[in-house]
């Protein structure tokens, strides 16, 4: 049996490490938004090259997501999933924290500077 102080130190240490990781991850800025459906890249949007805001719809066997894009930011405006977590997340413009719609297997993640190498090769 460890003392309570030992556990407090362990938990505080983990807390501090997570806060540091969280802050470090937030700092990234992104130029390219990548839209994945079930792990497959279906849309690649250069966030710096958008002049007019537009929306598009992604339909899969799981359901439908409507995505809006503006210069430098992106969001899910509508989804026919029950919880609508992705819609509530609102506009996202940067960072490594992606927009995720778990029921539909939809992920919108960001990539800094230009197109990612792996897709350049794949094309």
């Amino acid at each position, binding site marked *: 049996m460890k003392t309570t102080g030992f556990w407090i130190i362990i938990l505080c240490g983990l807390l501090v490490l*997570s806060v540091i990781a969280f802050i470090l991850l937030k700092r990234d800025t992104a130029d390219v938004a990548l839209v994945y459906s079930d792990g497959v890249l279906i849309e690649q949007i250069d966030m710096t090259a958008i002049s007019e805001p537009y929306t598009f719809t992604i339909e899969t066997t799981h359901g439908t997501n409507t995505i809006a894009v503006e210069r430098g930011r992106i969001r899910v405006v509508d989804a026919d999933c029950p*919880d609508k977590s992705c819609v509530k997340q609102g506009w996202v413009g940067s960072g490594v924290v992606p927009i995720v719609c778990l029921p539909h297997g*939809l992920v919108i993640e960001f990539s800094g500077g230009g197109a990612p190498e792996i897709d350049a090769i794949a094309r």
Partner: protein
Amino acid sequence: MRMTIKKMTLLATLTAAALVIFMVEAQIDLPFIVPGMKLGLANTITLFALFYGPGSAARSATSTSTGAAANTTTGANTNIKNNTDNITTANALLMLIARILLGALFIGRITAFIYSITGGLIGFAAQAAMKKIVTDKQIWVCGAAGAVMHNVGQILAAMLITGTSAIAAYLPILIIAGIITGVLTGMVAQLAVARLAPHKYST
């Protein structure tokens, strides 16, 4: 598995309570950055079931028994430990699985079930392991460990299902959330065990 009617009733009542908490919680949206984040209040019942059995003194009795005086207490504790009315770890696991299955049936979403069961089982494994190394005054530590591992499990499930590793970026915020919510729900379980365990053998 043979069990007394008293124990079966206790397990059923706890499972029902966990299910009600789970269902109520599923209706509440927490306005946090992470989508679908929950307090994990239903875990208080799992923690309670894990710690309502033999107390920490009885759990560690075999390792601390030295001298004649300690031996007599060990004898008494062994009786408590072998009491058939005790909720075992296997019982607690069955309760958890029953709650997640029934919860998924009531909510009616298969994806929600996959995340619940993955997080639930990994969190339970962490708590069952922690149970052996914490005292009855440290149940909140066990709660934090369970909540953090539950969230890690859900992230792993999400990464596997969507095939996207970027979801791992949620890990730091979910660990922070897990520690905070886990300590709180663990405290609730700790208070419940402290209040109820002394009355366990009075019928």
